[in-house]
């Protein structure tokens, strides 16, 4: 599984980064960046919580490496 960010949707709320700093950060413009996109099995729940924390659904989990 891999995290994908739709940066054009991001509204800089930062919720996802607060929940999942292992994979996500904001850049200087305040838009989300995926700092590590691969999701290990044990991380799945935390990653999904980070994704649900986004009010505008800017983050998605996709299949594959």
């Amino acid at each position: 599984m891999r995290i994908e960010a739709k940066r054009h949707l991001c509204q800089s709320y930062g919720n996802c980064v607060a929940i999942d700093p292992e994979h996500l950060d904001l850049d200087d413009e305040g838009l989300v960046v995926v700092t590590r996109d691969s999701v290990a099995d044990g991380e799945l729940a935390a990653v999904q919580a980070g994704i649900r924390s986004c009010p505008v659904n800017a983050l998605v989990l996709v299949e594959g490496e």
Partner: protein
Amino acid sequence: MPATTVPPGRILIVGGSIAGARTAQALRSEGFTGELIVIEPEAGEAYDRPPLSKEYLTGAWSRAQLNLIPGGWASLDATVVRAHAAALDGQGRQIRLSDGQLIGYDALVIATGLSPRRLVADDGEPIGHVIGTASDADALRHQLRDGAHVVAVGGGFIAAEAASVARGLGLPATIIDRRATLLEGSLGAVVGAHIAANHRNHGVDLRTQARITSIARDGSGAVITLEGGGLVRADVLVAGIGSEPNTAWLQGSGIRVDDGVVTDARCRAFGAAGVYALGDVARFYDVHSAKPRRVGHWTNAADQATVVAHNLLHPQDPIGYREAPYFWSDQFREKIQVAGHPDPDAHVDLLTLEGPTPRRIAVYTHGDDDGCSAVVTFGWPRGMVAVRRLMPLEPTTAEMLSELEELAAGARLVAAR
């Protein structure tokens, strides 16, 4: 069934907004395969509320952009019943809907949120707009045209955002509030004065320390009389005067209600087994302050959903909710973000941090130990991320400031992938 040890077979969620939708999503992503029923009177898919007084009110966003569940309720295999819950029988584990239908449950999740208070005209009937639902926002948006004078009553976020949207659309806007500054109730007088000045700079006519003595209907608008005799004529009147928890349906159920549904730190309600409450309607036991608190912010609802879902599915290994207080507001294209508890008695410093882009922040300090109780950032999302990372460590104000000064000074670049 020993309900305390076995995950429930049928979970009933009352209220299908942020708290309800996020609970349903968390249940399914945690592997719940049982029956999921959602009671929600509003038609359509679950939608987000904060944009109702922001991007959706300006017309920049469509209804589809508000969707909370990417694939909709169907993707969660949830049955949505379009009705109001009218009564709860906690002993018999069933609820009665407004149409008389009875629905049983193994576990019940109360997520009915708040309803905004309305202004009342001199004739005793409600008057003006509120912004609680997408239809409320639709009705208001259709009036925001042809130079209409928009008058928002109340000094909270809804009034401030409505005025900001009106000015953004080029309309004259007035705010009438009892207090001396804006957002004073939630952010205190120092930050309140800063925000009020920002509104004045953007052409909002602020009538502070004003008391309304009369609201008379005038065509589709209203004439408002203030104490001392001032008159304000509104083409469009918007109420931002607070809201009430939707708990009327719980009367007589035995569930403890006291300005919201009272819960323990695990989001369990009192008075009946297998009942949880979360989001705006809940008054949860806050482990931080050791007091029950009701919080009307988005992140609280979404974070509690994770706790409720976990506790429903792992009754033998329950977790507690520890609030990481955070909310935001958008005014005049600037994001105001608040982390922590901006205690009105705290000492507040309004500062500008030097750097390539000067950053305006407010820092709240309480007590003798220099503890930082809250930080407000103005248009600096990256700074707020640093604040939210630090806040759980209970930093002193000096520690918080040195972190933020460093961040503001160095333009640290993060490589985007």
